[in-house]
């Protein structure tokens, strides 16, 4: 699947959400999409899934069977789980019996007869995953698939992703929880500065759009090229601000004009977890180490 000069904005004079994205996703690719909140990750996923039309550019060779698992499954529908999945199976042209193996693998057998509106967040999320998998997808798009899942399903999901990729499918996952971080050969995509670029192994997401990031990664076989934002757009271009100091004790000296430091007080044993969450969201978070 190839994205050529892909751009998207919501209205004619609105700023670009994504601009001039060029990607090549060959069969078997497993890609993890990261980026700050509001960076355009979900928009990218919807463009890839074909549910949103690009404003400019094209997506070529999209596999015919696409599975799309949304970040938040819409439970406001008057069906039980089994009735809903049976309808989706029918629309996808697979027998209703295709529901059973996924219900078992995703731990859904106990609530198949429960109305969608009565499901817990994690159970509803599983329904969203199951409907995307009913027909073997050539392209599997999952928006925050690990969110709210129990430990068993969190462990099962990477295996399912491997199976889809092994069958030649393309898997694209938006993931704040790094559920696939240990997967060898994982393609990591960063949505930032209104475009998408490949992260090299070990490279972290740029902490802030106004603070300089590392240079573009080395070329990878998977991608034809990474695409910095062209300079003729109304979106913020690549900025060459000061680099982050590797030493957290230098934070005060590296605060950039226009930035604000906020203080968040948390319990000592939660500090690391909160810091990781903020970093996953693309913020420049550090533990100061002061105990009050």
């Amino acid at each position: 699947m190839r994205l050529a000069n892909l751009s998207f904005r919501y209205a004619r004079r609105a700023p670009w959400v994504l601009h001039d994205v060029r990607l090549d996703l060959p069969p078997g690719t497993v890609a993890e999409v990261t980026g700050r909140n509001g960076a355009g990750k979900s928009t990218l996923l919807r463009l890839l899934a074909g549910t949103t039309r690009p404003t400019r550019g094209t997506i070529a060779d999209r596999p015919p069977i696409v599975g799309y698992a949304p970040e938040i499954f819409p439970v406001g529908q008057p069906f039980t789980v089994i009735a809903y999945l049976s309808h989706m199976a029918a629309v996808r042209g697979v027998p209703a019996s295709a529901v059973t193996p996924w219900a078992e693998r995703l731990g859904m057998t106990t609530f198949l007869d429960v109305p969608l509106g009565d499901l817990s967040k994690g159970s509803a999320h599983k329904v969203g995953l199951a409907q995307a998998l009913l027909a073997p997808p050539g392209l599997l798009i999952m928006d925050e698939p690990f969110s709210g899942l129990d430990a068993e399903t969190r462990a099962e999901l990477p295996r399912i992703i491997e199976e889809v990729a092994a069958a030649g499918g393309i898997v694209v996952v938006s993931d704040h929880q790094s559920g696939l971080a240990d997967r060898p050969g994982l393609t990591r995509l960063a949505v930032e500065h209104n475009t998408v670029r490949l992260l090299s192994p070990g490279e972290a997401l740029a902490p802030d759009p106004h603070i300089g990031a590392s240079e573009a990664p080395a070329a990878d076989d998977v991608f034809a090229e990474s695409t910095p934002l062209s300079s003729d757009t109304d979106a913020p271009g690549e900025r060459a601000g000061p680099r982050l100091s590797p030493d957290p004790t230098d934070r005060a000296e590296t605060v950039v004009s226009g930035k604000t430091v906020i203080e968040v007080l948390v319990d000592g044993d939660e500090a690391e977890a909160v810091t990781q969450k903020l970093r996953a969201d693309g913020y420049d978070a550090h533990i100061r180490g002061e105990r009050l």
Partner: protein
Amino acid sequence: MKPTLLLVRFKIAAYLRSHRIIQPFVGLLAMLIILYSTRVLAGHELSSYGDSAALLVPVFAWAARGLLDTEPDVQRLISVTASGRPGREVTAGLLAAAAVNAVLAALAVLVPLGIGFAVMPGGAVLAGGLALHFLSLLTGTALGALSSRPILRDQAMSTLVMLGAYVAMLLISLAPVTWLTVPLISWMRAAGRPSFLASALPGLAAITLAWCTAAFLAYTYLRRTRP
């Protein structure tokens, strides 16, 4: 075509299970009570059908909008991927709305045969009534689609636009130039004449179909950027 029809079934099932059909159904009952509270004398049946068709347009629009709005926004995205193409989801929505309205229209044609008309009318009157209600359900479905949530996200604005457009159609169709809008008033006027089927219906149907085609094309075009 099969995924589209199965999506139609899914949408209708969701609409019926949500019980939102009760609202336009009550509207239909109210209209039928108003129209047929006194028995229609022999020879005036087609005129009554003309009134019924023109007055039921907002009921059909209400049903179409309700059906299209029943599906959550994210479910539309899922339906697009499940059916394989965005066009199938859009077509399925319109077909489902038209199918529900066809049932309501059939009731509007059949109920007066039992309780509204003093005598059973002939086949020509029935054909005229069916044709008028077919035009009415198409107009209502198009109006409901154009005021549904993917096009107009604000519920109050959507209701205002739907009812405002209907009133505007009524007012504009008072003008002697029939092609300015869907000729609702002309439906009513022409249906009272004895030569309605042969002389007036083809022209009125052509104008109505042209406007409805334009409305459906506009809806389909707008949905390209409003998934």
